[in-house]
């Protein structure tokens, strides 16, 4: 009948939808079974290594910090050497409020840290993101140094070089106290915050907004050409990334019960960059893998053989830059693909 004269396009559309690429695009935001593994491992860690919960807390904070950098650097391609600026802002926001007894409730404290760091990110992003390349690198570095020197200068309020010791943080939900000797509350609390932030970041990068960030990283001109508000997107992304880094800083201050100028250190900014690159940037789980690999090595090697650790770290960085630009997960991808191809061929 009419259908034979005018074949409906429906079957064609069906085959398009059935195409593996289309399928991949439509389902890529869905949760995979293996995405539960990091969280199961984290909870398993809690029961298996009760003596290492302090280290575990540090590790979780490093993951969160690296995740925030991933949003700016990995997804939006903003190359920054000064991400500790936001970590420090969050840490000092929490630290100063707690030290002077103005605000000690931990969860709202993290919100304050996020807002403070977000404001710094927004203000600096509005001016810094006009530039690119070396100038941007220098400006992020200088902003961080500026904040550090500012905190040093205002030593009447921030404790200067010595920082603010023995912060008193109120119990979580008014029940679970932070015990400086046994870090079980700190661990679970940090894990919960990390999970919430991770789900937020995960949703964000799969959203149209996240897609446009990837577009900006991959082809700036094309994104301009299709009318994407590039600079606004970058500023928003930078602000969100700063806010999450601020949460990581706030967690650091709360769980250690002190803040000092090391929160703003170039060392810290370089370390988080190394962690992210080591794991693989521009992918959600790079921060996890990188932080685990780096922190475990650091924890066990750096204290025993600090010089060998530094040498090894240097060699590792050189090798990554020369040969494995996508980090551990990138290497995994390559191996997986090779194995997969061989598997399919045989």
């Amino acid at each position, binding site marked *: 009948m009419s259908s034979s004269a005018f074949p409906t396009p429906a079957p064609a559309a069906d085959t398009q939808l059935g195409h593996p690429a289309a399928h991949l695009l439509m389902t890529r935001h869905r949760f995979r079974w293996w995405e539960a593994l990091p969280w199961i491992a984290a909870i398993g860690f809690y029961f298996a290594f009760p003596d290492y919960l302090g280290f575990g807390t540090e590790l979780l904070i490093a993951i969160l910090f690296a995740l925030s950098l991933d949003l700016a650097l990995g997804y939006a391609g903003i190359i920054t050497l000064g991400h500790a600026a936001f970590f420090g802002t969050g840490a000092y926001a929490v630290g100063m409020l707690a030290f002077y007894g103005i605000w000690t409730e931990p969860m709202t404290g993290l919100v304050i840290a996020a807002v403070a760091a977000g404001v710094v990110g927004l203000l600096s992003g509005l001016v810094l993101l006009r530039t690119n390349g*070396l100038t941007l690198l*220098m400006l992020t570095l200088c902003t961080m*140094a500026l904040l550090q020197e500012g905190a040093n*200068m*205002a030593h009447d309020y921030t404790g200067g070089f010595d920082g603010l010791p023995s912060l008193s943080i109120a119990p979580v939900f008014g029940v679970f106290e932070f015990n400086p000797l046994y870090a079980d509350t700190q661990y679970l609390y940090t894990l919960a915050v990390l999970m919430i932030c991770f789900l937020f970041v995960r949703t964000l990068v799969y959203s149209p907004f996240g897609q446009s960030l990837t577009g900006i990283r991959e082809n700036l001109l094309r994104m301009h050409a299709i009318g994407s508000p590039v600079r606004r997107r970058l500023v928003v992304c930078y602000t969100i990334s700063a806010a999450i880094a601020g949460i990581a800083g706030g967690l650091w201050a709360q769980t250690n019960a002190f803040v000092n100028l090391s929160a703003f250190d170039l060392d810290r900014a370089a370390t988080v960059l190394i962690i992210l690159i080591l794991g693989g940037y521009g992918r959600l789980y790079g921060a996890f893998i990188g932080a685990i690999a780096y922190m475990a090595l650091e924890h066990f090697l750096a204290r025993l053989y600090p010089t060998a650790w530094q040498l090894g770290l240097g060699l590792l960085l050189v090798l990554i830059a020369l040969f494995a630009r996508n980090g551990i997960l990138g290497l995994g991808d390559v191996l997986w693909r090779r194995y997969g191809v061989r598997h399919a061929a045989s």
Partner: protein
Amino acid sequence: MSVDFASNFISILLGGLSAGTVLFIVSVGLSVTMGLMGFVNLAHGAFAMFGGYIVVLAMNRAHIGFAPALALAFVTTAVLSVLLERLLYRRLYRAGELDQVLFTLGLIFIFMAAITIVVGPESQPLQLPAALGGQLNLGFTRYRTYSIFLIVIGFLIVSGIWLAFERTRIGAQIRATVDNRRMAESLGINVDRLFTITFAFGSGMAGLGGGLGAEFLGLDPQYALKYLVYFLIVVSVGGLGSVAGVYFASLIIGILDFVLKLYLPKGGTIFIYALTILLLLWRPQGLLGKKET
């Protein structure tokens, strides 16, 4: 009163100028190599540290004079940098900034660890030769001989480099390549070789500067990271590939730093960072840099 103020002013000026001179000698190579290749070389400070250690070790352990030790530092740093450039750096010329940052950060760590292993983690003192110790009578005031020596050396070096840039063939080739690399290549300039030469020279200068500055900057394995921000600030404020720009930026920042450390010892350097940010927002290419096309 006014005499006091004037002599104070002059001593601050001289102290700042001598610190700025060291900054210039270390950073000038970084400016030229970054301008030529656009390579973000964070390890430049490590070359300066290497040179400083060569000078200190040559003087303290091999009992060589100050001047030959400086020459030795220049040569060894230049040779080492050429080796690194030929073997490693050149693989990353076309890579993104992020890879370059990581690579050179890795090099810094390797240098720091190597020096800790070979020499030790403690700070190395530098004993100046007797002729450069003491004070020098300038007629209107007396000041440390070594600072005056540094200022004079720095002026000679900047004049020499400026002349080489403006009056020699290789200088013209460098200027052409900084301006437009593709055009220079199509005119038959061997950019590859040019870069190796300038890289070696720039790193040699860094080694020399490390030796000259070791007396008051101190010398320990943290040196490469501690002063990195200063070298980068000087280069980006002065302008990539601009020798005069780097000279002026170094002197300004040297004097500013000297004044701020004197009057605002806690956090005074904040003004340097603030000024750098403002300047880079106003002129992203630096004081005397060429506008990017």
